[in-house]
């Protein structure tokens, strides 16, 4: 009963918060700059509403199928969000901008390989092979997402790249969730079914924290570097002045 209350307590406010994030992004027209994150937010809201409906109506088979389908969709959208973050971080640097797609592809390819090897090497402790396979699938997705973010943060840290607030907020929120989910799902896969309840709570807690981070960044004011008032160079001003004087003299 307590577990049920805790899960509902984490589920409903999180869904409402994400809906508010989606509305805020529409108000500030941020969906133009961050289409992948906007899509991710809306899809998560829809998934949450559907899964909650199945849960309340005790439709366990649709809930089970819906949960893992949602995991697959979230995995794909999560990678798209990370690529969006890469693009925004590197877009400001001409020297790196051209390398964005190539770096991302190479990093993703290596990480998929790592994920496949780890799936083969540690198939999980569930007695039910399907459940074991599903949790290993979830873990593999987290390896790719965490690895991509690890590479990005390491790269940005070494090259001292600056982050715009919104981009940093999205990256930190996503990073927190993927990080905790990776650790939790790895432990769950190792422990088997006895770890399911704990995994569920830890995952939801982490996601709630991520949503809170996104709200703080998206509802706050972005610290956009302010360009000094555009004044033309002195030489242009002098030329214009001379041209104006000549016009006046006529």
């Amino acid at each position, binding site marked *: 009963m307590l577990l049920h209350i805790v899960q509902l307590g984490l589920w409903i406010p999180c869904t409402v918060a994400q809906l508010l994030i989606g509305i805020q992004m529409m108000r500030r027209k941020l969906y133009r700059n961050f289409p992948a994150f906007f899509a991710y937010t809306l899809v998560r809201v829809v998934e949450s509403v559907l899964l909650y409906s199945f849960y309340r109506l005790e439709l366990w088979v649709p809930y089970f199928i819906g949960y893992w389908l949602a995991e697959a969709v979230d995995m794909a959208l999560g990678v798209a969000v990370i690529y969006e973050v890469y693009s925004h971080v590197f877009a400001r640097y001409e020297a790196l901008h051209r390398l964005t797609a190539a770096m991302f592809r190479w990093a993703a390819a290596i990480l998929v390989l790592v994920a496949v090897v780890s799936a083969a090497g540690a198939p999980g402790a569930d007695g039910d092979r399907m459940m074991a396979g599903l949790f290993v699938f979830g873990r593999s997705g987290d390896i790719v997402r965490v690895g991509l973010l690890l590479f990005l943060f390491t790269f940005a840290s070494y090259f001292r790249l600056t982050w715009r607030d919104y981009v940093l907020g999205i990256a930190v929120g996503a990073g927190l969730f993927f*990080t905790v989910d990776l650790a939790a799902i790895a432990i769950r896969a190792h422990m088997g079914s006895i770890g399911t309840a704990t995994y569920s709570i830890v995952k939801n807690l982490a996601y709630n924290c991520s949503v809170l981070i996104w709200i703080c960044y998206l509802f706050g004011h972005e610290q956009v570097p302010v360009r000094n008032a555009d004044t033309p160079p002195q030489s242009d001003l002098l030329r214009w002045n001379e041209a104006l004087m000549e016009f006046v003299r006529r």
Partner: protein
Amino acid sequence: MIITLVFIALAVVLAGLLWISLRGHSADVTGAEDLVGRVLLVDLEAFRNLTDPAEEEFLRAQLPSSAFRIVRRQRNRAALEYVSKVGQNSAILLRLGEAAQRSGDRDIRRAGEQMVSLAISTRAYVLLASMVLWIGIIMPGARFSVSRLLQNYERLRSTLDTLVRMEQPATASRLMSML
């Protein structure tokens, strides 16, 4: 179990990087005057001498192999200090370049863009040069060169000179002497 621990370690490392990114560790540089006390003096002549392939070949020919290995390791360790200073300076000049990109003057903005690009490529060469020098320390007999880093850093200094003369011509010589 080991794989589980590896994943947890990965998660902890990423969490650490997230924390560092949130805190930030970049120098607050808004203009050339902010370079004072931040940039480190790099004796380019000494650095060039330490990494000169011709000098290295001369030593290789003149010294017995055991003595050459000792000398090469010492030269590479000294060169690593210079490389580290170049890396730190380029990180600060990256910030200066970004600040210059926000200027109202078109020429200063252009110089700023060039500086940012050179600073990033210098950081990349610093990484490569460090690896090359460490290989030279581990395997003193191997033949590798870090001349590309020197060339890039000299171009970065030249761009800084141009930028500083546009922004603060009166103090340009003093600021350039700090590098």
